């Protein structure tokens, strides 16, 4: 099982993702440079990490989608490849059209970094198969534009087809508006593509893969991905 971690010049969670999947979890990984025009054949899952891809002064991820490597990532996706976009990675996935909807500025117009509770709404995806159903996990967020929005019919489809994978809740799993940190529609924290191969999420599972840092609830996301490749 090998992860490919995309490095845009303004990525700043690329090292974190690398350390978590290799140092903490023992999988192999390699960096993929944004100017590259090929993706090595042995990459099983691509991680689009957090950060500020190209500065993101315009709109998060708006420029990243035009990078040379993103053309390859889109091909990789079209061939059914596994992709997880975290934070800025999620923004790039929506900008690229690989996931529906968009990420607006947080409702309070401020950057927010804090722990949130998430309910795993669907544990039969390639990214959540190691979670028990309806698990409540603690994962940090760190973003200024994480307020997920989509039109009514898109949201209805996401709800009906079980594409909402993570929702902001309290520690008991109540998805009340008061536990929604950024104003996202229906408390959406993470969604999956209709073919089930592409996950976008605002919270950072790679940050909680180490007990020393206070929590390791994020590990199951990466173990779930690897689980798909156990023959």
């Amino acid at each position, binding site marked *: 099982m090998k992860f490919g971690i995309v490095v845009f*010049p*303004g990525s*700043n*969670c690329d*090292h*974190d993702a690398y*350390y*978590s999947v290799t*140092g903490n979890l023992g999988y192999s990984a390699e960096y993929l440079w944004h100017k590259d025009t090929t993706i090595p054949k042995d990459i099983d899952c691509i991680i689009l990490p*957090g*950060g*500020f891809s*190209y*500065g*993101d*002064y315009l709109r998060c991820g708006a420029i990243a989608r035009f990078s040379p490597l993103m053309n390859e990532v889109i091909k990789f996706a079209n061939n059914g490849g596994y992709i997880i976009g975290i934070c800025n990675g999620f923004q790039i996935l929506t900008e690229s059209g690989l996931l529906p909807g968009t990420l607006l500025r947080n409702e309070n117009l*401020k*950057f*927010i*970094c*804090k722990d949130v509770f998430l309910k795993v709404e669907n544990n039969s995806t390639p990214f959540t198969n190691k979670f028990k159903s309806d698990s409540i996990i603690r994962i*940090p967020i*760190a973003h*200024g534009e994480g307020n997920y929005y989509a039109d009514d019919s898109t949201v209805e489809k996401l709800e009906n087809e079980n594409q909402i994978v993570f929702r902001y809740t309290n520690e008991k799993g109540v998805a009340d508006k008061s536990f929604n940190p950024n104003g996202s529609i229906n408390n959406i924290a993470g969604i999956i593509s209709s073919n089930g191969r592409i996950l976008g999420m605002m919270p*950072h599972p*790679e*940050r909680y*893969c*180490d007990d*020393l*840092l*206070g929590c390791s609830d994020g590990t199951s996301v990466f173990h779930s991905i690897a689980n798909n490749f156990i023959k």
Partner: protein
Amino acid sequence: MDKSKELFSELEVTVETAKELGLTEKEYTLILEILGRTPTYTELGVYSVMWSEHCSYKNSIKQLKTLPRSGGRLLVEAGEENAGLVDIGHGYAIAFKIESHNHPSAIEPFQGAATGVGGILRDIFTMGARPIAALNSLRFGELDNSRTKYLLSGVVHGISHYGNCFGVPTVGGEIYFDNCYNDNPLVNAMAVGIVKTDKTASAASSGVGNPVMILGSSTGRDGIHGASLLASREFDEKTADMRPTVQVGDPFAEKLLLEATIELIEAGVIAGIQDMGAAGISCSTTEMSARNKLGMDINLDVVPLREQDMSAYEIMLSESQERMLAVIHHDKVDKAVEICNKWDVPITKIGTVTDDGIIHITRHGKKVVELDADYLVLGGGAPQYDREFKEPEYLKETSAYDTDSVAKHTPVVGDFLELIKSPTIASKRWIYEQYDSQVRTNTVSIKGDAAVVRIKEIPGKAIAVKTDCNSRYTYLNPYNGAAAAVAEAARNVVCTGAKPVAITNCLNFGNPYDPEVYYQFREAIKGMGDACRKFDTPVTGGNVSFHNESQKFAVYPTPTIGMLGIIEDVNKIMTYDFKNDGDVIAMVGFENCELGGSEYLKHFAGKITGKAPVMNLDNEKNLQDNLLELIDKCLIKSAHDISEGGLAICLAEKSIASGKGCKVLLTENTVGRIFGESQSRVIVTFDASNQNVIENLCKKSNLPIEIIGNVGGESLVIDGYLDMPVNEIREIYENAISNIMTN
């Protein structure tokens, strides 16, 4: 030969021109003597910035030299390089430094604070160190007016914008609110980086004939005279007009510069490198050259510009951000260009290193500068002054205030409620949640007495970092206050289980030409030096910021300390929250029930007055050594120092963090016991089975210990005084600042 005829001056230079640029008549005369001719306008500009307070330390350097600046784990002496460098073993070093950006932040809070963060980060990665943590020490006026709210909001947003995008976790700091900072807030930014000891870069130029190259952003008209005119004088009615001297930050450009710089240093192509902060090309060319008695031949026509018609003067003084000056080994230029191209960082050769010690600058084919580098820099020809000093008048009044009788009062519950919601004490959640505190996945803890950051490169090891300065104490007793700032910073890192090893300092004072301000400065340096010697924590470097005053008043003397501590075993990291019901609560240390300068007295008397708490460095060292032993032997479960708000607030914070109540019985329920701020005290908790061994250990060291109660229940109980559910206290504590900011 008459040089003035060979050199081109855009404007005629007279003593009046010199004064307009912030130089004194005496300094101008000295320049004439050094040169033996009239300087060109550009040369005068270079002198004015290099001899400004900000760059030359002319009114502080003689005092700074009395501080302990070497020894211990220091790899470079203070002032030698862009930042201090501390050996942490296993072939790694920590680079760290704190710097002020007070004046820019006062007139443009967002960009002022953002570029303050950018500047200090560059100081760290210029040495080859990758930034792993940022902190900030902030001072504002009272939060009861819209201007302070605007400043706080802008500064926090600026720090958040720059640090978050750059990708450095902002892990700690401190903030106080006092009237004296109304017109002149303080914004001190600290950065910490890690580097292999054999991969550090030097800020000295070397190799005659090597190309001098400019890396990063192009040069614009922003920030001209930021150092000399804005940062080196007081605020008056014209200050707002100086907004154009505030630079504009681009954290994405800085991120690219970081990656390129580190790769350039690792590839061995760099002979010397310095970031361009204050005074831009003027400062970097002269300082780099002077360090090795070399010169440079620079052609300004090839400097990438944002506006083509910029004059030599403007290019030399521009403080455009995200730029570096690098001397590249002449045979490795191709490699340097390749690395910069990879990161899309512009790199341009603007000159060569010469052997004559002279900075030669040409623009449009005309020579505009020919100056001996050594005369421009600190440690060379830059002036060094002794200033007059005189004990401030106000000390008579403040020291005469009768705190003893207030200390004997019996407090009411309302006192506790006032203190717990006071912005200086209340939770800073509204602020720290805007900072990415976890990026790089090293942050073990941002709450508690100091931030703890693990070192991935050395498994099992961590550092603890903290900024501290209770400037109310420094105002009431500059010597004691500065010593207490070092002591508190050390105590805070000790409370996490770290051994304090070195400090960086940011010395924020008023106008040094005012003898009363200079008295504060001298005394503070003495107190700081004595404390650093006692704790064996040398000063690795830092920054002096004078002229922090408005027409009405100077700020309290604020010598902020940034402390670095090392934790040898991450399994022994200590935290401050209560752990288990039934645990014994004890106060360890030296209590004198002092109220001078306390948060309580501010609330009670409406002002900062009284005598500053006594600072006995022997007692403090005794406390810290024993506390480290208790932690190392795994005898205690929590430790939290008693600071602003005294014992009651310390207990409340331990309860809020854990959700656990406690029951405490004091010998007497007086204001002095409950809210006193005597130094050298820590509240610890431990399992009852360890009580004997802990008491014996303290007794052996003549360290007072008093058992005051037990952990447990849902309420914070100080028997006979306070009985309040922890949830209610938390509600007030957590929301106090956000309630003010959103109303």
